[in-house]
């Protein structure tokens, strides 16, 4: 916590290196650290993948993580989760790791998610992912039609909702992580013995929960963009089913009638 002065609320303000208009600040450096750890770790583990009865510990860990994310996504979208796995999994793992690296001892670190620029970038990714997935699912017209359901009167509110939820996504993550960092810094100045560790532990808990919530909310937004369409499809299916049942029932009644007469 030495890196972030008490007066600074964002790691953007910690500048390591500056040359004309190029500025390397703490946010950039630690984003690259997190990316490096993720990429290098995955690369090292996936180099020696096996399907035999014994698998390495690291492969086991990775399988548990990926399978957990898959199951969470499948619980939300009620379809095959593979299409969303890459995007949602990347979001979750990046936020998770960047919040978690705080505990590495001897490593002066500020979570890049404590900067509004990082969280805004992640939220903008979600903002663009929603129409992309929706268009891939049901075509451009189907996506536009979502805005006019249930009535065209709701159009402005739906557009405002798209923007405001992106803002909320960014500010929520930023506020949570920034508050954790800030409170630890304040406690370090006021009572540096044990209390900062307790708040740090609490900060880790919030970090994990916020990573989960960010991923789940992104998934819910993406899923809800194609939900209206799904309901229509389900209704059609139901109608077809009831028609089929009626068709099935008619002949049996006729047969019953015949047998009665006989």
């Amino acid at each position: 916590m030495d890196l972030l002065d008490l007066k600074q609320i964002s790691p953007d303000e910690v500048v390591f290196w500056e040359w004309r208009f190029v500025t390397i600040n703490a946010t950039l450096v630690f984003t690259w650290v997190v990316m490096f750890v993720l990429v290098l770790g995955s690369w090292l583990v996936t180099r020696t993948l096996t399907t035999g009865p014994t698998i390495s510990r690291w492969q086991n860990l990775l399988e548990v993580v990926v399978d957990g994310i898959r199951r969470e996504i499948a619980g939300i979208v009620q379809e095959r989760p593979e299409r969303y796995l890459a995007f949602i999994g990347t979001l979750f793992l990046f936020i998770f790791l960047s919040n978690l690296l705080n505990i590495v001892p001897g490593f002066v670190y500020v979570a890049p998610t404590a900067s509004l620029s990082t969280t805004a970038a992640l939220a903008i990714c979600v903002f663009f992912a929603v129409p992309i997935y929706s268009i891939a699912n049901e075509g451009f017209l189907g996506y536009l039609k979502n805005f006019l359901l249930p009535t065209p009167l709701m159009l402005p509110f739906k557009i405002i909702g798209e923007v405001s939820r992106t803002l909320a996504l960014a500010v929520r993550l930023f506020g949570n992580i920034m508050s954790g960092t800030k409170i630890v810094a304040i406690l370090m100045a006021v009572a540096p013995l044990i209390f900062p560790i307790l708040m740090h532990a609490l900060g880790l808990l919030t970090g994990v929960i916020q990573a989960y919530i960010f991923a789940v909310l992104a998934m819910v937004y993406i899923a809800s963009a194609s939900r209206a369409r799904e309901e229509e499809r389900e209704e059609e299916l139901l109608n077809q089913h009831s028609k089929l049942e009626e068709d099935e029932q008619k002949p049996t009644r006729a047969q019953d009638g015949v047998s009665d007469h006989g």
Partner: protein
Amino acid sequence: MDNLGLVGMISIFTAGLTIGLGAIGPALGEGRAVASALSALAQQPDESNTITRTLFVGLAMIESTAIYCFVVSMILIFANPFWDYFTQQTAGG
């Protein structure tokens, strides 16, 4: 009182008021949400996955109002633009 003192006093007072009031509403809301989620869990333990996930999402939504208040109060205390402006004014004038 000069401008600098006034800005400092009102900023700190408002920051405390913001986080205080901003904690009350979300606390009541989250209490209600958790209470209904618990009774729902007690009635339908089989649906615990869906209920828990929806609870988390709902709590995140409610909590974000408190987080907004916190961010505002943090800016008032640590990154107050008016404070910087008036310190520059006093230093310059």
